[in-house]
């Protein structure tokens, strides 16, 4: 009896413990652990639903390269300041701390300090403070993995039409190709991943040669182009919702741009741009990682073919893509057309964008301080990319002549007091702020229909109007910013940052034609772009350049035209200087401008308020060209430059992982 009582007590107490101790189901042994559930969302979840699958593609879209928000590389500084067209006066940022000082080393990629990094991230480097996010340093391979995952898994999405699956695959191939192209421009030959890797699966592919890399990217684009569901264009009716989604036109355009880069002398030359130093040679070193091994003129023919493929396909689709044309043949019309072309997304009446990134919606992105303008362009607002006098000289005259005032600088060099900013290529005025007598209607600057941006003018006198670093060269950037203090232009329409737009396709074809001997065709293509802003024919207006016969001059003019048309859009000026091995441009000291108002006696007015009073005669000027000293680039020092600077060093840590990556020569 007593024993029974004991057993009951034991059982009773056990039950009480069980209840008192746990609110949820009581289990013992493995069942107790088993119920720890899995993760809420995994790869199977994502591909179980069409919308989730699209969501995944959108995250890949978010990583399309855009120079202004290329993550936190160089601490957000814009890469244009590495070219001859812009200079950074901002003391922080990788431009000044890494490139101008020549401080970049093969360890820069691995440096957690954004100021000491290179312009493009090889790997995703997570910082110590924010393990969750990559500190903005996103490797192309993150996007590549996303794209492969889409391509490999999309077949199993149950509620998606085959045509849409094909379309998403086309987009994924195109995005992936663009990311490989981004890295190719910075590093040369790459490690090529042909699938999404599984846990524990090693990468052993090693580094591909530069040509293998080009062909691989090309094959991705071919895959995209061949996707039957990948449309040529977005239906006009759905542009309001979908403008900016990639199309077969994006893939065709990128293919042309890829081969333009490949055919350029950096890789396609009888000589490598630089040899490996003897002490850097390792078992992996292969100069073909950064050189094709010789010069192959047929590469330009390929480039030309792919340009023509684009235009053929476009013609077959009713010439859907077309340059935005001016409504009126005057400065206002030209500027308006140009601004629309570079700045805004395709809509029912504008179809110039072929491939654009959307890091924001409008200029302010709904949040000024941390919006796109406030943050991504912060480097520019802090003097991170100020136009140089060299950029100003790039722009020719409205009539089509190249910049004619070669010897206008210095005391007494402008006895007639010419206004060298008058009657210029209208794109100059869209690119940078220069003194102007009459601004077209609706093109006012901060409410004024003139610009007295000279010494003692409004900039000097009104710090609230603009900040001194913004016009540290004497010029101020206008492209993208417009007059961001004046009115609501920040939020006027959705912005698309061009990766490629149609104007560039004409310029690529012009270059390919010039390289393959069709000078007349090249000049025709150039004129398509130039005539949009009303410029006269280049070869006619500049007979001295002998453009119909002088290939070197013609190529130069094409590069100049590229800088005028697509400068400060996707970093192309820097990459043009690189692919054309323009050591001369990299090592040339750049200049600021001092614009002096002259009094009636022809003396410079240097003291006090020299603002212009509206209605009075426009003054006469003298110009002084001053070598840039703030943040002077070590490249300008005699003997400092070596061609290693054409390509960035890859991550030393990655090289050491032993999967076949090699360091670029010179680093």
């Amino acid at each position, binding site marked *: 009896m007593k024993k029974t009582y004991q057993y009951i007590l034991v059982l009773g*107490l056990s039950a009480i413990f069980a209840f008192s101790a746990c609110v949820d189901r009581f289990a013992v042994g493995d069942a107790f652990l088993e119920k*720890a*559930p899995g993760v809420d969302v*995994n790869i199977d979840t994502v591909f179980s639903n069409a919308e989730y699958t699209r969501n995944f593609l959108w995250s890949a879209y*978010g990583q399309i390269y855009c120079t202004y928000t290329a*993550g936190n590389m160089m601490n957000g500084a814009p890469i244009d300041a590495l070219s001859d067209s812009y200079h950074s006066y901002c003391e922080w940022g990788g431009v000044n701390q890494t490139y101008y000082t020549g401080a970049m080393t093969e360890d820069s990629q691995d440096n957690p300090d954004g100021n000491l990094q290179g312009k493009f991230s090889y790997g*995703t480097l997570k910082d110590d403070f924010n393990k969750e996010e990559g500190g903005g340093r996103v490797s192309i*391979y993150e996007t590549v993995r996303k794209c492969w995952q889409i391509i490999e898994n999309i077949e199993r999405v149950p509620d998606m039409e085959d045509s849409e699956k094909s379309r998403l695959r086309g987009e994924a191939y195109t995005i992936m190709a663009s990311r490989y192209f981004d890295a190719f421009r910075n590093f040369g030959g790459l490690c090529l991943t042909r699938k999404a890797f599984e846990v524990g699966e090693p990468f052993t592919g090693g580094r591909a040669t530069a040509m293998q890399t080009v062909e691989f990217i090309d094959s991705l684009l071919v895959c995209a182009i061949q996707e039957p569901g990948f449309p040529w264009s977005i239906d006009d009716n759905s542009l309001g*919702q979908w403008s900016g989604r990639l199309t077969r036109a994006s893939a065709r355009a990128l293919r042309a741009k890829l081969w333009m880069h490949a055919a350029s002398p950096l890789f396609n030359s009888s000589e490598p741009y630089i040899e490996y130093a003897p002490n850097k040679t390792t078992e992996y070193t292969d100069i073909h990682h950064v050189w094709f091994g010789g010069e192959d003129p047929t590469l330009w023919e390929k480039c030309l073919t792919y340009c023509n493929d684009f235009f053929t396909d476009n013609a077959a689709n009713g010439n859907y893509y077309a340059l935005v044309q001016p409504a009126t043949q005057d400065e206002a019309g030209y500027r308006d057309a140009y601004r629309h072309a570079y700045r805004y997304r395709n809509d029912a009446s504008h179809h110039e964008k072929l491939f654009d990134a959307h890091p*924001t919606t409008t200029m302010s992105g709904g949040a000024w301080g941390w919006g796109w303008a406030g943050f991504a362009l912060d480097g520019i607002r802090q003097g991170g990319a100020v136009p140089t006098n060299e950029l100003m000289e790039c722009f020719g005259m409205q009539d089509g002549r190249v910049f004619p005032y070669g010897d206008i600088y210095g005391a007494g060099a402008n006895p007639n007091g010419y206004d060298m900013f008058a009657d210029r290529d209208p794109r100059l005025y869209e690119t940078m702020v220069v003194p102007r007598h009459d601004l077209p209607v609706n093109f006012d600057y901060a409410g004024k229909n003139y610009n007295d941006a000279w010494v003692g003018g409004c900039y000097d006198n009104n710090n609230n109007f603009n900040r001194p670093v913004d016009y540290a060269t004497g010029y101020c950037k206008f492209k993208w910013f417009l007059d961001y203090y004046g009115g609501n232009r920040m939020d006027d329409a959705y912005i698309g940052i061009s990766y490629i737009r149609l104007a560039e396709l004409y310029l690529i074809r012009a270059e390919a034609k010039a390289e393959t001997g069709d000078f007349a065709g090249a000049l025709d293509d150039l004129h398509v772009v130039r005539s949009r802003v009303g410029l006269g024919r280049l070869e006619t207006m500049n007979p001295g350049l002998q453009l119909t016969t002088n290939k070197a001059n013609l190529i130069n003019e094409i590069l100049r035209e590229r800088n005028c048309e697509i400068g400060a859009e996707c970093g192309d000026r820097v990459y043009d200087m690189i692919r054309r091995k323009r050591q001369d441009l990299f090592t040339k000291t750049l200049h600021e401008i001092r614009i002096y108002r002259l009094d009636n006696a022809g003396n410079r007015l240097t003291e006090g308020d020299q603002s212009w009073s509206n209605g009075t005669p426009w003054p006469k000027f003298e110009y002084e060209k001053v070598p840039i000293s703030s943040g002077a680039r070590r490249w300008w020092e005699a003997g400092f430059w070596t061609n290693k600077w054409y390509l960035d060093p890859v991550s030393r840590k990655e090289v050491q992982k032993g999967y076949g990556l090699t360091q670029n020569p010179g680093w």
Partner: protein
Amino acid sequence: MKKRRLLQLSGLLVLLLLMPGLSFAQTLRVEGKVLDELGEGLVGAGVVVQGTNTGAITDLDGHFVLPSVSRGATLEISCVGYATQTVQVTGPKLTIQMELDSRALEESVVIAYGQQKKVTITGAVSAVSGEGLMKAPVANVANALQGNLPGVSAVQPSGMPGADEPVIRIRGVGSLNSADPLVLVDGVERSFSQLDANEIESISVLKDASATAVFGVRGANGVILVTTKRGTVGKASVTATVNAAMQTISKFVDFADSYTYGKMWNYAKITDSLPVSEWPGTANIIDYTPYTDQKIRFSQSVMEHFRTGDMPRTFPSTDWIKYVMNDSAWQEQANVNVNGGTEKVRYFVSAGFLNQDSLFKTFSSNKNETFSFQRLNYRANLDIDVSRWSQLSITLGGRMQNRNTMGSGEGFLFRYLQGATPYAGCGIDEQGRHIVSDPNLVGPFDRDALSNYYELGYKNQSTNVVNFDIQYKLDLGFITKGLDFKVKASYNSEYTAEKNRQNGYGTGVFYTATLDADGNEILRKEGVTWPIPYSEMKTGSRNWYTEASFNYNQKFGKHNIGALLLYNQSKTYYPWDSDGNIYQSIPKGYVGLVGRVTYDYDTRYLLDFNIGYNGSENFAPGKRYGLFPSISLGWIPSSEKWWEPVKDVVSYLKIRGSWGLVGNDNTNGARFLYQPGAWSFYTGKMTTHPEIRGTNFGTSGDWLKAVRELTSGNPNVTWETASKFNVGVDATFFKGHLHTYVDFFWEDRKGILVSNEDTLPAVTYLPASVVNEGRVKNRGYEITLTWEDKIGDFQYSISPSFSFARNKVLEMLEVEPMYDYLRKTGLPVNQRFGYDLFEYYQPGTEERYLATYGEEMPNQKIDLKYGDCVFVDLNGDGVIDPNDRKPLGYTDNPEITYSLNANLHWKGFDFSMLWTGADHVNRTLNGYFRDQFGSTNTSALTRWVADNSWTEDNPNAILPRISFDNRTHNNSDSRAWMVDSKYIRLKNVEIGYTFKKSGKVNFFNYIRVFVSGQNLLTFSNFDGNDPEAPGQGLDYGVRYPMTRVVNIGAQINF
């Protein structure tokens, strides 16, 4: 000493009292006295009538009373350290003379899931009694461990009230992972650091595999078992203790005054700007005029004001540490506990209170704006004999605590104390105005010390912790003798309410001290006062634990057999989760099965076999369970007959050895390591982070939803295993005067859970996963000697102890380095690397370098000037780059720790002291010390750096020249910035006097008054800061200073 025995005996006594069997016969009242070997009353001896539950414990004078004993019954008298005696009851008065056994042989020690007589222990276990812990007048009992337990280090990084948890390591570090030990209080995983020391019966530390294998997947870093006090039979014994302590700063950073600051700043700037040939020399730096004020920060006139102090309000030189910190702060502790019970019900009830004041001056009218900590601990431990066969135990413990932090909390406050330059202000004047200097006048500065907290509010956290255990034990003697069954359930909950009343930096009113146009001093009022905002946050956590076990102990002649079979499971709700809370809503569970068999023959040959079988949710079902066996053997040759001849010299000798496997399933709190990768949805937004940017389309569309991959699981991941081997010798020499305990251990940790993040090729962009890749060996030894003797009335013991542990990484996921000396594998865990400093550049360096290395001095890649670091070119490429770094010094975790315990008794007086020391330990100086003027060149300069940096006057300095241009170079990791932080410290001292009750005054049993001290003396090579303070200084690394405590207290027992 005697009381300690009483305490440790109580547990044993409970067992004895439960021995079944009763007999009744003619009875009488027996009074007796038990004497120790010296003829004095022996306190705490257990007197039990053999074959019954009846018994008593001797009081302080050794007296005991048994109200009803049958004549002729046999009394068994036992006491730890003494041979158990049996006496026949022949009359009402008895005097029993006890004889010393080898010390502590019968002493019980708490081990995993039970207790074991020390004599039969074959593993490596150390223990300290609650009384031993109470000698340290510390608020956090975990800080009393250091020096009391060989092989255990407890380094305290912060002295902040209520947040002074030490970092505890058992036998150093044996893993690339966390080396935190498992801590159990009364057999349940919970924190012990905020327990009242008066509640603690003992703390055992289980160091080797035989002791920890039963904890299976969680025991690899050693286990700390804390046992709270329980009631003993007898009339209520009330003990009240009060302590009042004064805390002072033991050692803290000292900052340079304005004049020194200005001198060093100008010197750095001038030496940077001028070629070496034009340097004016340190002495002339003040009068050096070629430089305009734009180039040097502090003009001659400013320096003159600093030097003379003629305008202390406008050109101040404030010692901020002194200004904002009190010389001392009070700490009070009080405890009352009652211990007693009948044979049926025994209880221990305790209530304790702690109050710790802040060392900071608040200057504020709001008393909450300070650091403070109050804690109320309570405990009621109850044991009830429900029936002859069964016992119910209830353990209820808890605490309510209230903690205030001021300003933006410890981390920021101390971080920005460094920002407080001496010329930044002069504090608060007699009218209560907060005066700040004018940076245009005195030079730019980061801030003054007050602007971090003055009138910026506070944060209050009140926490309520309840721990509740209930245990039912059933003696299954009716099935077979010696078998019992036990079931236990435990529930813990913690609830914290946080009131946040903090304003941000720079929101208060201040007065700028400046000069008007005529040079007169004026104050300019600036800033606005904002009302202090209010917000609150509540956090809670709870967990439960259950176990059920069968226990068997039986003696067959000389064969002693014991066995244990135990099942347990536990669940923690809202566990901390390193994966960004993706799993926090999922409770964390463990299950375990424990088996143990012990056998000894005549207490001569000992065998223990333990097995733990554990499952962890972190691993896939097939990889989930681990079997963790251990075996240990012991032999006591001194019990052999043939030992007799040497017994006078070596009275006791035990040789023991153990081997076993223990596991670890944890890496930084990551969970479900086997699960497929987690993905996460997000909505695109404008950000510079392309990984979470997403996109938008169209000409008016919104940001779209996106999804991305976050983690990647490893289905093959499983627990890491530590194979541990331990050999020990315990010996007693010279008739119990000298005791030695020696342990050697070897540990091989394999399959350590490490992230493969650093080795994954970037090109696969696989999110990192946890893999079983690392391997670490750890070995070392511990030696403890105790000498005790008595000279007349003078009794003393002295006990030095020495521990050594050294680890070596055999495998870690390391990328093949370019040079062998860059390899981390083969070196200790967390080995530091840095440049090899040749010397500070000065005339003749090139020649000396050539003479030393036979090579030209390498290009240092800077504009090298005198006093700059010259590093050695290790790879011979002629330039200094990160490939020229090599392993430097020891790690933060000392390889050697040692201590010396001394106890003296003379009549009523007692004295004890504890010295501790550490060696083979380095600190790397950062934060306060490097960069010298802070990263913005506007922070304070430590006096130690000012005194020890290279100048022309101080060419043999420890530190390089302070430079702005060459800062990155000079401040690179090298031996310049590494200090030897070995130390010897007088950790505790206590002097007490005990009044025993006498004939006239007898309302109490005893009263003890005592004075004690903590951290009274420290000897260290490094005089820039406390040697135990963390070297890293950034952010939260900068901590509240360590305190020195002087305490007076009294204890009464009645």
